[in-house]
């Protein structure tokens, strides 16, 4: 059985699936809205009174302020996770490298928890230092800390893994960082108030329910910049697949490349994680599926992982918010439930062709 598709059929298929997935996601939810009303509601929300469509005001609000930002956030976060997973696997030349497994998500979680637990102290100190200006950038606190945590964890894994050469060291470092982060989170949980504790727990389960237009805008811009820059290094990453010395002989600045990847990855992961919490499995599964379908060429792997990551997370989120409606479950549970069996199936089919 051959899964690999030509580029000509894969790209249109992915785009078509993404469009279908997005439409379904907009149409499904706890509130039942007919297809005609979905279109009318979106029109009414984006330009009230342009066409005198008769649609309940609530529909416009649900579509424009809840479902649409949530859909976009799902596409952005899923895309970020897919791209970061693909690039990390390329950089470490290891199919196990995944933001969750090598400790990046835990690093981001520690960063974010600092803000969730010690937020009032931090706000006080920074407010006294920067004065009124701080009030304007206060919402940046959580993304910034999450990014720092993610960058620091990636850097630690990179250095301990002998600058990415030793896979065993890298995985061990990742496990140690995850354990250390777990202990730090436990310590925070101990001193946290009841409310901060629940926020922390919920945040670590991952959910897109906090989607706002600000979050979409910020994470979207960061994703576009970081993703674009990472994509521009696709040929260098391809050269790196041959081995480090071979890449150097081909004229690739290997150290500089790795440094860039770590920083860009950390910023992108931090931004994604800070709006959605920790969502596992997408970063691991998506690049593998793309590799099975299209091969390991990073020029295609990176954008296709973005598309497939967005698609997977959108589908997962649609299920998460409609399966138990009117209640919701955290999307991280769904991505694991969806991703793992599918991944196992693909692994079984393609045992000898993975990397």
């Amino acid at each position, binding site marked *: 059985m051959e899964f690999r598709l030509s580029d000509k059929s894969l790209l249109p298929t992915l785009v078509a699936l993404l469009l279908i997935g997005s439409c379904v996601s907009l149409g499904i939810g706890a509130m039942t809205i007919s297809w005609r009303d979905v279109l009318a509601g979106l029109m009414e929300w984006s330009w009230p009174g342009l066409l005198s469509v008769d649609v309940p005001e609530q529909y416009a*609000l*649900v579509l424009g302020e809840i479902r649409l930002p949530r859909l976009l956030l799902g596409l952005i976060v899923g895309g970020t996770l897919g791209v970061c997973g693909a690039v990390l696997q390329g950089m470490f030349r290891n199919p196990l490298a995944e933001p969750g497994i090598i400790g990046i998500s835990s690093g981001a979680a520690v960063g974010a928890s600092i803000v969730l637990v010690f937020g009032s102290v931090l706000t006080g100190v920074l407010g006294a230092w920067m004065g009124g200006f701080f009030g304007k950038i206060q919402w940046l606190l959580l993304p910034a800390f999450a990014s720092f945590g993610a960058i620091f964890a990636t850097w630690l894994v990179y250095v301990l893994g002998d600058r990415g050469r030793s896979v065993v060291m890298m995985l061990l470092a990742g496990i140690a960082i995850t354990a250390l982060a777990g202990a730090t989170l436990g310590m925070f949980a101990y001193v946290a108030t009841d409310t901060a504790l629940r926020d922390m727990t919920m945040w670590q389960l991952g959910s897109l329910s906090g989607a706002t237009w600000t979050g979409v805008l910020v994470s979207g811009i960061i994703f576009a910049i970081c993703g674009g820059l990472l994509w521009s290094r696709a040929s260098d990453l391809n050269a790196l697949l041959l081995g480090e010395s071979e890449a150097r002989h081909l004229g690739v600045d290997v150290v500089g490349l790795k440094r860039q990847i770590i920083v860009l990855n950390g910023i992108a992961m931090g931004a994604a994680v800070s709006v959605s919490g920790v969502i596992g499995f997408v970063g691991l599964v998506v690049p593998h599926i793309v590799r099975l379908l299209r091969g390991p060429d990073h020029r295609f792997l990176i954008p296709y992982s973005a598309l497939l990551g967005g698609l997977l997370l959108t589908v997962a989120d649609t299920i998460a918010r409609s399966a138990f409606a009117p209640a919701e479950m955290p999307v991280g549970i769904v991505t694991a439930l969806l991703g793992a069996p599918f991944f196992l199936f693909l692994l079984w089919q393609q045992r000898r062709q993975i990397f």
Partner: protein
Amino acid sequence: MTRLNRRAFARIFQTQNIHTQIIRQCIAIVALLFSCSASATAPERVISAGHSITELVLALGSGDSLIAVDSSTRLPADFKKVPVVGYYRQLPVEGLLAQNPQLLIGGEHMGPPNTLTLLENSGVKILQLPEAENGAQLLSNIDRLSAVLEKPAADIKQRVAAQLASLKQARAALGKPPRILFVRAQQGRGVKAAGTGTSPDSLIRLAGGVNAVEFAGYKQLSDEALLELRPDWILFSSDQAAQLKGGAALLEWQPLLKLTPAGKQSAFFSVDGYALLGGIGLASLDEAKKLNKKFAGQ
């Protein structure tokens, strides 16, 4: 002829349009008047998030307008089936809006903030009540609820006031207040005690005891601290009653407890878990009475 026909038809349609317009306007005016009068009466579609608040909504007689509750609420067995919209700290916006509510009532910890903002923007009224730490706050919560639900509160307030008065007398009759420890315990993982600012703390004070611990919130206790605290009574939530074998398991897990006054007397008491949710509620008053009788040795 065709042109004439068309004009005639057009005129007919126009006149019809005018008529339908007038009719529509009349309907609209009637509907408007109706909706004005409707808005002056009690909200008909209410969602309640939090057990102690739902309890009050039902006690005020607004059970008919209750259309959904959160997952921390336990409704009476004979109550109609209503949808459960998730946990009160993580309410899903769309799930709530789909119920088409007019009013959402919940405690101060109801959230997340994003959900509440979006609900308010879509015209849902929101009432957040503080967690009652004492009887006076419970009475003021009842007042605020009765105003919003437009139900008379005199009966229930009278009942609550009577219960509070009798509790006050009972507290005075106790003499020296006993030292109480409220615990959550897990085998091999020690004992967590409820400090100030928690619902058990409010319940203990209402029943006439003093909380044996003075820290805020729930914290882990060391074995030795248990001795130092010298609790006269050890309380736990009813959902742990089976696991703790009515308190006997506590003595097995923490042998040092046998040296405390409570351990010597086997003075354990399980408190209805729902009386401990969201501060002092109606169930808490009954539970405080029971506790007080225990303390008094009745």
